[in-house]
């Protein structure tokens, strides 16, 4: 059965927006928001059930003229990769709304921001027009700016300004690069268009590709975040309210990776191939570096934030290994990370709501006081350190197995993250949960309540389901990944035909020098 099949994607994108209007008008904002997010989730499940996973082409496409003179279209479509992320996003949202019960300040505004953020995220995931993508991409910033800036912690202004400016800086470069591609395409064909499918026919010289890819990679790399562009993340996470952290870790970070898959790599395949050792190197550094720093943290939320840097390093590694195993694993890991890290942020939030501190040293011996909380914390910790039968293991294993084929040394270094992950998570667990309950202020700590259980249990079930029976997810993701890989290699060949010399003589050093010389000559 298929509801609103003709334009289901538009419905999914704009249902939260309608919901935000309803929140604005109607009383009981939380209930309205909850209903709206659940409806969106059900609709996305409906999308999934009608999705044909054997077909790797974009499905449920919609296309209208938007700004005709500039060739900008409202073009939507979904494939397995975006579908899985859409379902993740719509799945996390009701949980985040449930979490909003601990927020009392200006709740309507908070929920409206959240729902608008959801519209922006879903729009980003479903756009096939580069301009539309860009609009939604930038639109994600505004609600997040408010969420951190208004409902955040002590240093919220610093964190939110840093987050927005940092991300904006990358996106502006991306916009310039995008316009360049459109301009090139116009020069070559006389047709002005922002459609992704058209732009994939643009002929680019290798040097152009290289510069354009760098611009895109910077935008997406900041969002991921790739070492060394990650420093906005710990601040943003620490200051954000729980819901903000969940959505940030759960979905927003994945947008960077999604951008690589959908735009940067297919548009500039040769440059991405040439840059692969560099990017993967950064990813592997990020894995180890993030884990080591996470280990030394005194603030629980900061620890989880740095663990995200480490985990997303795996995703980048798998993505750029560019074989079916690793890249599917990378997307699977995005889902898994959304679930486990989202849950960890919720757990930290539960503590913070009660005791208004996130310092590890302020806790200790919680197991005897709050056993259910401790048990939940244990299970999600295990998911985070990728114990078999949890979702984290499948993702990490697939990534490492696939990457091992592509880059041996990098992967072996990345495997050390498996050990370090256990080090920092178990140390956190030891210091907060085990030991004597020796702080008087924790004597009146209450255990997880029913509302919080409703937030955690779905995540828990999903984490184990994905770990034990990952097939339904892999089945959806895998054909699209195969399509992505063949798209990249086909376009790479296509570009080679027009510009044969460049790649053979490619040398990163030389390319940089040439660019520099060219820019001087122009002056």
């Amino acid at each position, binding site marked *: 059965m298929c509801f609103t099949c003709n334009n289901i994607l538009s419905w999914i994108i704009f249902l939260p927006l309608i919901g935000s209007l309803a929140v604005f008008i109607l009383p009981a904002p939380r209930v309205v928001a909850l209903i709206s997010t659940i409806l969106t989730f059900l609709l996305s499940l409906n999308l999934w059930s009608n999705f044909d996973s054997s077909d790797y082409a974009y499905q449920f496409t919609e296309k209208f003229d938007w700004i005709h003179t500039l060739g900008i279209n409202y073009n939507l479509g979904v494939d397995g990769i975006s579908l899985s992320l859409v379902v993740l996003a719509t799945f996390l949202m009701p949980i985040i709304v449930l979490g909003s019960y601990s927020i009392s300040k200006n709740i309507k505004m908070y929920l409206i921001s959240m729902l608008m953020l959801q519209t922006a995220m879903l729009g980003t995931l479903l756009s096939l027009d580069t301009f539309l993508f860009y609009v939604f991409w930038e639109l994600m910033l505004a609600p997040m700016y408010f969420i951190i800036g208004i409902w955040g912690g002590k240093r919220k202004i610093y964190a939110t300004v840093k987050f927005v400016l940092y991300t904006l800086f990358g996106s502006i470069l991306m916009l310039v690069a995008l316009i360049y591609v459109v301009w090139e395409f116009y020069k070559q064909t006389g047709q002005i268009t922002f459609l992704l499918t058209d732009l994939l026919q643009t002929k680019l010289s290798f040097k152009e590709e290289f510069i354009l890819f760098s611009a895109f990679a910077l935008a997406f790399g900041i969002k991921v975040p790739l070492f060394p562009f990650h420093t906005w993340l710990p601040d943003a996470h620490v200051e954000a309210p729980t819901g903000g952290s969940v959505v940030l870790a759960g979905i927003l970070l994945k947008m960077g990776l999604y951008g690589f898959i959908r735009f940067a790599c297919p548009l500039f395949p040769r440059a991405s191939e040439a840059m692969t050792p560099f990017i993967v190197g950064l990813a592997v550094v990020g894995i180890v570096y993030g884990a080591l*720093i996470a280990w030394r943290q005194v603030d629980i939320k900061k620890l989880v934030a740095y663990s995200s840097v480490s985990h997303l390093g795996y995703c980048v590694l798998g993505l750029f290994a560019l074989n079916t195993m690793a890249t599917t694993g990378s997307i699977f890991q995005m889902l898994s990370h959304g679930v486990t890290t989202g849950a960890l942020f919720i757990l930290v939030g539960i503590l913070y709501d009660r005791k208004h501190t996130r310092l590890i040293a302020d806790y200790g011996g919680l197991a005897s006081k709050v056993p259910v909380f401790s048990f939940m914390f244990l299970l999600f910790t295990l998911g985070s350190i990728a114990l*078999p039968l949890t979702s984290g293991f499948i993702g990490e294993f697939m990534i490492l*197995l696939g990457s091992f084929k592509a880059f041996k040394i990098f992967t072996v270094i990345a495997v050390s993250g498996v050990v370090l992950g*256990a080090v920092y998570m178990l140390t956190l667990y030891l210091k907060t949960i085990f030991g004597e309950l020796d702080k008087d202020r924790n004597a009146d700590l209450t255990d997880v309540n029913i509302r919080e259980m409703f937030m955690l249990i779905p995540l828990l079930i999903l984490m184990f389901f994905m770990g*034990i029976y990952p097939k339904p997810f892999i089945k959806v993701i*895998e054909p699209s990944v195969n399509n992505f890989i063949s798209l990249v290699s086909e376009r790479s060949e296509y570009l080679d035909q027009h510009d044969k010399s460049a790649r053979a003589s490619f040398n990163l050093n030389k390319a940089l020098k040439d660019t520099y010389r060219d820019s001087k000559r122009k002056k």
Partner: protein
Amino acid sequence: MQNLLILIPIIPLVGALLSFLSGKIDKAVSGWVATLAAFLSFFLVCYFFTGLEGGSVIFKQTLFDWISINDFATSTKQVVQFGLRLDALSMLMCLIITGIGTLIHLYSIGYMAVDPSRPRFFAYLNLFLFFMLLLVLGSNLLMLFIGWEGVGLCSYLLIGFWYKKTDYAKAGRKAFIVNRIGDAAFLIGIFLLFYAVGSIDFLDLAKFFEANKAVSVASIVALCLFIGATGKSAQIPLFVWLPDAMAGPTPVSALIHAATMVTAGLYLMARTHFIFEQAPQVASIIVVVAILTSFIAALTALVQNDIKKVLAYSTVSQLGFMFMAAAAGAYWVAIFHVVTHAFFKACLFLCAGSVIHGCHHEQDMRQMGGLASKMPITFVTYLVATVAISGIFPLSGYQSKHAILGALEHSGFSHWIYYLAMFTAFLTAFYMTRSLIMTFFGKYKGHAHPHESPLTMTIPLIVLACLSVIGGFYLQDRLPEFLSKILNSKTHEHESIFASLLHSWTGLSGIFLAFIMYKFYPAMPEKISTMFSYLHRIFDNKFYFDEVYHLCVVTPLEKIGNFCWKVIDVGFIDSAVNGTGSVVEVTGEISRFFQSGQTRTYCLGILFSTVVVILLCFVF
């Protein structure tokens, strides 16, 4: 019948859940629920045993494709199945796990009788059985890996069972992390195999390695798997977690850290013996590591005063013996020692538990003594197990240890290894007898009122002691035949009883010496240890392995972590980011000066710049 295979591990899993939930109603019930689950699983294993027809049948059950990927670019299908497989080797392990597991569950009912959180204990214990059974039943390396990591988790949870003591919780964490180091190597081994063979299913691997001799990756794969095994089976360099693991309740030490989990490394080697057989260089590494581990652990055991620590080092040492056998290519002998060791070491640990229980949680042997009359059953069973581990004919330790020494003698390794192994066997008898005398002989030195343990605890002791007596004799011919389909097992020719007695001389002399030193001249050990106080200190600190690791690994990593955080992240990257912001800010401040909004300033500016421009025109 084979569709019931999954039930073998599932029953304890359900048992874990039920025993925890039943504990909510009545804590006393949870232990019996867990024991029942373990027993049901054992019963099912026995049922399968009858269907196995002496090892000629193999049961298989594939539940679903766990990870399956169609790679279009290379047009291959990569599948890892979620499947189980039961052959003679798995059957043997299953029998030990569920059989001894049931006994130890039963024992725990008595041992944990007053612990307020025993439902949690029994749930963990049952969960351990689930993972351990998955480990030995897995049909491919990744299935084995589930169990492998899962038992590590249970070990972590059970070592830190009394989590209020931070030291115990730390010991649990140490065990998990040290094991993870091995696991990382194990994973790399799996990756290598996956690409060399195209599958990690044991059957495919066996076929591949039979068809292809001298596979180039064999050595490196074998090395990776061996490093994985050193983690789980506590060999140098990763053995440091096992002595600390004694923080867990004693039944846990018996089940996990003596009888089953720590032998998983041996199981792995036996399971993938075809890889190790193609890696002779690795075999020589293994034998050196094993003999060193065995010897060092035995020396350390000589000077321990904590009864559980003696047994822990003894376990490390015996595991070394098993690895020696495996390195010599005598896999069935290694497995034979796994079995007999499971009998007598589980018995020893449970006896130690009984003693600790009877002496009100006293573990220091200097606070014991003279318990023979107060705890007669415990004493007799401990005595039997001690004689067994010392390798005295006709008890079970003799047959397996003799087979190991025999395999070493004919292996082509240096004879020094053989002699050192023999010397270690002598040491084994010595330190075990020492612990026996210190605990049970002489006068009681403690302050508690020792008493014999309840029936739930003594019955398992008696059963295990009986197994330690007859196990070796019963299995020495049947086991190689049973395993012949899987492992290349040849039995050695039988020797006369007289010769067997003669071959027990290492053990006998160890026992003899210990009696002289600790029974008849009790002042002697003291004198010797003061004479060689230097050596004593080294032994007592297990050759400073922990300290060296702390100095060379943990502290540098901590420093690097802090450096990354404080210097690189905050000091460098973030300063650069904030610096960019400041530059913009300062630029803004400066330009703000000109944007004052006062017309006269702008006029002045216009005038001033006009003058400058005119002047410039004149100059150029």
